[in-house]
């Protein structure tokens, strides 16, 4: 029946190809040796927090901050101190914010956390309006994909990812997971930067623990340069809120409720001068939809105001606060938390004189 003589008609072994694959494996090994110097800051933080959350010895935290890169520098230690003073007993918060994740990622993260640790009493949750779209987190189609999905794949297994992504995205998720097995492919952009500037491979670098633990998971940032008009314009180009994200946010709230956790929703500031742009529209949308969700989940609280702006000198780019900006925001956040909600003594208990 068969007319093709595909394998039997040649004895040639692709020696060069096999040799090349061997060379690639060696390169992969060498690149892994320099992994911490090659990985991006975001990846290092994600992996650091992944190890932390998977560590059974992690101390108990009364409160956890969960959210995207825009709350990465929030000083959880300061919030702990303020609430300790207010409540009159030791309260500890930890900032588990993860850059480049969307709502689905935080649902999975909470699930992972609750599997291994005692539930915290409260979660401070913040996802900026442009991360309410799962599309943001998906890479472009193509071989050697990059982007948010790779970051999500660093944290979760295929089975976990399949739970939150619709089946139409499973191919993409699977590819990203497969590509993630190769350090060369998944960190290609960083390897390119390292090769273009090899000095950084030999430069001393601070271990992640020093970077993050100083603020209970909140990252120390410098002052940086205030954002340009172009950066602000780019930051405004949000993609809007999708139904999937709302669905997984509700699942997040449901999971928290099942474990007796209160969820306080808050927003990170945007640079002043952002009027009539998509994050504002997104914020307006959130303002419109959040009360509806709040009506269904009594464990959800909204910290007002939902849309906050700060002067531009408090930003290091079009959307992220710099060091002084985060200091100011952390302080204000702690005050607003204490001022707006009276459940702290209830959930943390008060030490009576």
């Amino acid at each position, binding site marked *: 029946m068969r007319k*093709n003589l595909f394998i039997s008609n040649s004895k040639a072994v692709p020696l060069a190809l096999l*040799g*090349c694959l061997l060379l690639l494996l060696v*390169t992969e090994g060498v690149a892994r040796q320099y992994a911490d110097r090659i990985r991006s800051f975001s990846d290092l933080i994600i992996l650091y927090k992944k190890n932390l959350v998977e560590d059974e010895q992690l101390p108990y935290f009364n409160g956890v901050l969960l959210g995207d890169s825009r709350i990465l520098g929030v000083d959880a230690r300061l919030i702990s101190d303020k609430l300790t003073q207010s409540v009159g007993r030791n309260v500890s918060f930890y900032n588990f914010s993860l850059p480049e994740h969307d709502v689905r990622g935080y649902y999975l993260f909470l699930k992972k956390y609750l599997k291994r640790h005692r539930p915290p009493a409260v979660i401070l949750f913040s996802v900026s309006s442009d991360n309410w779209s799962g599309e943001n987190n998906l890479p472009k189609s193509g071989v050697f994909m990059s982007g948010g999905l790779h970051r999500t794949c660093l944290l979760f297994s295929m089975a976990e990812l399949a739970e939150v992504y619709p089946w139409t995205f499973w*191919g993409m998720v699977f590819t990203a997971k497969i590509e993630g097995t190769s350090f060369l492919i998944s960190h290609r952009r960083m390897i390119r930067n390292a090769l273009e500037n090899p000095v950084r491979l030999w430069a001393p670098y601070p271990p992640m623990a020093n970077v993050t633990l100083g603020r209970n998971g909140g990252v120390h940032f410098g002052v940086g340069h205030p954002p340009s008009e172009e950066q602000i314009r780019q930051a405004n180009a949000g993609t809007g809120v999708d139904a999937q994200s709302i669905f997984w946010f509700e699942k997040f709230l449901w999971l928290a409720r099942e474990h007796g956790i209160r969820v306080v929703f808050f927003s990170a500031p945007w640079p002043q001068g952002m009027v009539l742009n998509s994050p504002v529209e997104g914020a307006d949308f959130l303002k419109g939809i959040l009360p509806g969700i709040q009506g269904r989940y009594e464990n959800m609280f909204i910290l007002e105001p939902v849309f906050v702006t700060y002067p531009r000198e408090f930003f290091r780019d079009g959307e992220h606060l710099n060091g002084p900006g985060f200091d100011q925001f952390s302080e204000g956040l702690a005050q607003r938390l204490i001022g707006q909600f009276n459940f702290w003594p209830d959930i943390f208990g008060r030490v009576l004189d």
Partner: protein
Amino acid sequence: MLFNSLQFFIFFVIVYSLYLILNHKWQNRLLLVASYIFYGAWDWRFLTLLWFSTLMDFFLARRIEGAFSQTTKRRWLICSVVLNLGILGIFKYFNFFVDSLQCLLSYFHIHLSPATLHIVLPVGISFYTFQSLSYTIDVYYGKIKATRYLSDFALYVAFFPQLVAGPIERATHLLPQVSSPRRVTLEGFYQGCFLAFWGFFEKVFVADNLAKIVDPVFTNSSAANGLEVLTALYAFAFQIFCDFDGYSNIARGVAQCMGFEIMVNFRWPYFAVSPREFWQRWHISLSTWLKDYLYIPLGGNRGGELKTYRNLFITMFLGGLWHGASWTFVLWGVYHGSLLILHRLFSPLVRNISRNICFPSWSRNLQMVLFFHLVCFGWLLFRSTSIGQIGQMVHALFGQWSGVGFQEGLKAAVSLVPFLWILLLIQIVQYVRNDPLVMLKFRPLTRMVFYYVCLMALIVWGETGAKEFIYFQF
């Protein structure tokens, strides 16, 4: 579905796995269905257009062959030409001609608002229309017998490796391969994989990276200086070559894996020393098509010098227009037509001089460099989006060099080298040995290093996200 996407890779693995276990009859059926899926992935509605072209030319070719008199044959042929070019005219050129007419009349203060068509250009329409049309013409001239099998002809028109951007195959070459059983060998598979890999490298590493140098200059042409325009032109010369040659190589490679042999579309065009030689090396399937079905029927070089010039001019004018419904493409065609005419005019003189004066051995290299720059100037016309932009770019290229020093020049050259050195090295070796598959004849150790360098370049510097091929718009 783009060749440089994961979607295509999965598609091809499935199709190829099935292909290997089927017999010839079912292989053809599989390829036909796969080709329609491949094409329908862009926009399934345009499948009807593809089917219409296929059915029309299949039956018209049967009519031509079955006609008793030459007059009837001719009538059916005219019918085929008019219908094919009519489809192309409506979908590709209607809005262009309406807009141009409107513009012309407005000069005479006549203002019209004629209706324009709000349709997307069906991908690959110029390619498959020419391929299908060449079949009826070949049947008319008796070069090939009209096939009795619609499925064979449908596969000839829609064969997915070369459906959307060529090479424009001839029925005399491809149809017999469709009709008879093909032999799939491991050696052919290796060669096919290599061609596809090299094409992928040309597209993803060279062309897509060079696009990042070219696009900003052409997007903001009013602010560009002479050096930036020159750098962008050099970059575009290699971008368009690698983009199109990359596509052709992937097409040839994919076809070769399945036992098909598709014509070579490029033979180191930048080594050409004259416009004539350039068109024997660049987009060979189109240039030979234009020669066989336009230039020669117009009279070729048989009617004296003046008629030859006229025929060259018309052929290149229409060749330019084939590329797109824009005056910039027309201008590009006219420019190449003029180069061909000038070359024909002055080549006897140059030959005489070279006979009397002993040119040094490197003179061919000098001519190559000079002609390369003429081609680059042509790319300026081709890449510009309007006549106004051409004016801006030419002004910058020849007039805005103040403040440009050696350091800036060096920096510009250095920005191109990382993406070009592998390509240039391989092109030189291929050209010297006159063998596109010369890399497969290297020693295993050399090949191993070559594969490794290419793969690392692709992994680390290859552009992510499947970017469309430039020639898809034609």
